[in-house]
């Protein structure tokens, strides 16, 4: 498949998906219509996207790689990035109105609702990740570290990875 066409199809998929969900448009275009991807490859792409660090939405990079190798992966990367810049149009529009009391109050309310959504996103992650005393200790330690110190977050992540590795050797953590 032509890489430019692949980019446009992947862009169509990323532009029509919200909240990082797998796009049904992508399956329709690449699996059913053009037949350049199998369901098995799509599942493997989603799994790779979820296992790698960073955004889950980067499964389109894996899809691109399956369809057209490294140039396809680059097309997928570009298709994932392109819609992100639409937020700047929204910010420019709202930014000019942000000092109005009603808009300010609405933004404060959105911030509080965002906290609720973060709590909601934490629950399934905690169910998967907190599987014994060591993960509990890592979770609590990272909370305390970030809440009460000014160390960079990266140290918390590196420390947690090392603790997980040590726990793996000692049989204290389930991979």
């Amino acid at each position: 498949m032509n890489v430019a066409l692949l980019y446009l199809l992947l862009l169509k998929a990323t532009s029509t998906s919200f909240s990082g969900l797998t796009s049904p448009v992508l399956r329709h275009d690449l699996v059913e219509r053009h037949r350049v991807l199998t369901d098995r490859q799509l599942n493997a792409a989603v799994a790779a996207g979820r296992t790698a660090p960073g955004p889950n939405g980067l499964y389109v990079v894996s899809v691109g790689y399956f369809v057209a190798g490294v140039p396809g992966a680059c097309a997928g990367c570009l298709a994932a990035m392109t819609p992100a810049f639409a937020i700047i149009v929204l910010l420019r529009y709202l930014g000019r109105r942000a000092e109005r009391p009603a808009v300010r109050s609405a933004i404060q309310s959105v911030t509080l609702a965002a906290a609720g959504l973060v709590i909601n996103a934490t629950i399934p992650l905690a169910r998967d990740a907190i599987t014994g005393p060591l993960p509990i200790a890592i979770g609590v330690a990272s909370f305390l570290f970030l809440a009460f110190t000014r160390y960079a977050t990266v140290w918390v992540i590196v420390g947690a990875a090392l603790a997980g590795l040590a726990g793996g050797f000692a049989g204290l953590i389930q991979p």
Partner: protein
Amino acid sequence: MVSLSLRRLSLIYLRVSSLTFGGGDPTMAALQSELVTRHGWLSREKYGLVYGLARITPGTNILAFCAGTAWELKGWPGAILAVLGATVPAAAAVVLLTVGYEAFKQNARAMAAIAGTLAAAVGMMTVSAWQLVRPDLRRERILRALVLVAGSVLLSYVFRMSPIWILGMAALAGFFWRAPVPE
């Protein structure tokens, strides 16, 4: 406060995105910790605004979030570098995983290290929620804060309502129910 250069800003996005597992939410929590809490470059209100708008932007929320927060701090060059920093190394990891996914899944050491970072992500996200709510935990504002946070949890967890609708309803509620100004 440490001054913010384009290089420093892009390195933060690159580092956080390359090392945070578990998808967009832990990455946003880690960026909140860096940009809002640790360095104070972005106000809590701006963070909330970008978070809300990232949810309604098509595509991958976290990339819109990176573009929005970096645009607030350093304009278009910041937005472009932040999105590149958050995407390119992670995309390279996705390609490597695509090539060797089965072998990687069998590597107990790598999976144990990832399990450790996922446990840390739970702590990071709890801190993130706490830091968003904490300034509103004052006597004159606490009722409004509790109603909005609990309502958001209830609608998303129990009723499985889309985040876009929840944030829209919160904005509408905030439009009419304003926080009391302290005397």
